[in-house]
């Protein structure tokens, strides 16, 4: 009888320690998850900022100004355009 009790006591202690450990692990993992969530959110914010930046730099009026001003590009005169049919392109 005493032996059985001792055995059960040992099992109980092991279980208790296991519970504490797993709880600790769960909390650690959870806080890691939280960090990743925050990181994800920050990346999303940065993505928004980059989108803004891309859109600002890529404004059509700016592109047109640089193309016409700095690069000296222009729409060709109708006389200098030749259309290729689908057969010609191949």
């Amino acid at each position, binding site marked *: 009888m005493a032996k059985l009790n001792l055995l059960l006591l040992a099992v109980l202690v092991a279980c208790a320690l296991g519970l504490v450990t797993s709880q600790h692990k769960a909390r650690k993992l*959870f806080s890691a998850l*939280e960090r990743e969530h925050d990181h994800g959110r920050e990346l999303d914010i940065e993505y928004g900022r980059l989108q803004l930046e891309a*859109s600002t730099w890529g404004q059509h*009026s700016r592109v047109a100004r640089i193309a016409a001003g700095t690069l000296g590009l222009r729409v060709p005169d109708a006389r200098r355009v030749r259309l290729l049919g689908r057969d010609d392109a191949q």
Partner: protein
Amino acid sequence: MTAGSIAARGLVRLPVWRARIVLVGLIAAFGGLAVRAVYLQALRTDFLQEKGDARYSRVLEVPATRGRITDRHGEALAVSTPVKSIWAIPSDVRLKPAQAKTLARLLGMTARELHRKLAEPERDFVYLKRQLAPETSEAIARLGLPGIYEQREYRRYYPAGEVTAHLLGFTDVEDVGQEGLELAYEQSLGGRRGSRRVLKDRLGHVVEDVQSIRAAQDGTDLTLSIDSKIQSLAFAALKSAVERHRAKAGALVALDVQTGEVLALANVPSYNPNNRARLSGAELRNRVITDLFEPGSTLKPFTIALALESGKVTPQTMVATDPGRMTLAHYTIRDVHPAAALSVTQVLQKSSNVGAAKLALAMPREALWDLYDRLGFGRVPQLGFPGAAAGRLRPYRSWRPIEQATMAYGHGISVSLMQLARAYMVFATDGELVPLTLVKSEPVAHGERIISVDTARAVRAMLESAVQPGGTGPRARIVGWRVAGKTGTAHKQENGGYAADKYIASFVGLAPVSAPRVIIAVMIDEPVGDYYGGSVAAPVFAELMQATLRLLGVPHDAPLEPLEPPSSDASREST
């Protein structure tokens, strides 16, 4: 000798009551513990739970970000990004003069202004400055001043600025939509802030999610039907025309014929939605959708379509327009180019008021009203845009003959530019009216048939002749594609009458004629000097149509040859 041996020998007999007392004492102690336990666990549990929670349990706000607005190709048009607001608890603030000076400089105010803000000790929350740039707020945080805190907020940025201002509208300081599409789609863009209960450890890290009180929901992104390149070109073309003609305002809308999508919607004057310090009502108005005007000659094609539908006339039927004027009940209708007789095609091409009036008077007034009604005049367009105007189409029972005649050429009726552009859909789609949308949609759009295929094609051919050198709108022509359209020049309504020297010049047209893809409507309000639709609005149409067709990759249906210049008198038309 030991006690054990004494007891064993029976020399000392301990009285039984002593053992009983110890036993009762023990039982009483355990009983006390049990009562205490019951008291704490069952009766005072709420209070204790609360005390415990207060030490490690926290309710966190879960912010929701506002959805982004992009154009049809995913180009960002409106994005919310976090900024910091600086606030203070005035009674906690202790500032040395030098610190106050630095802080005031960073906040962009004078030291006196700062002190005035902090001089209200009974208030325990004062915003010093909202929505600061990240660098500034970091600099303030580095000062480490007591009683001064920062708070994260969202601010909306519009990279295209004034180009998309009227279309998108803007949000207020709390990032809630106030105008335009921001207001119209507030429900889906806004998202919903959530909150959750968590456990925090000694260091402030969240260690366990206890309960989600309300799930946060981020706003959904909105993809518009707008093409930002076309939009940008439209705004530039319109702005330069308004400046060139010293006009009061201008509006423009471009529609995709196949899908009913709005490709561009521009207004001048405009404003910068990123900096709305000084805004006037005139700048805020979205003229395409909320402003009404008498369209003038741009309505003539519908009168003619109705005449063709009735079967009484063909495009070649001659209409007597001699001597270029017609008097009905003390009111005289005039033509700028008087002619003895014009064919139905020429009535449109030369924009003859007398011809259009005669055609309208030959038909029952119900028929004209019914057509206008089915085209959507006098009804709020189903666009989901706040403040969309219905226009005014009076019931036909109240029409007198003179009104029936003027209605034929676009007077006595008011429409918005959006309604007018949409109505031209029937000539572009072979007679069907497709519902419009500002949101990118699947390519299938089912229209409602308004006029027959034959009529639509006949009027389209007439509209093409109206932009030929013999018509009123030759400056609408472009190289490489066939265009069709109608000019409009109308006296402006003022104080219940017509102003003699104020005009609205307009042009509505479509291209390419062989398989229409795009409709563009342009309206210029009060041009100074030259005021005909054919010379003020038509060039804007041509410039934008050329660029739009090139951007959309629409196949050419006309040779790539330079156009012959129109005569200078051509664009004059009856008002």
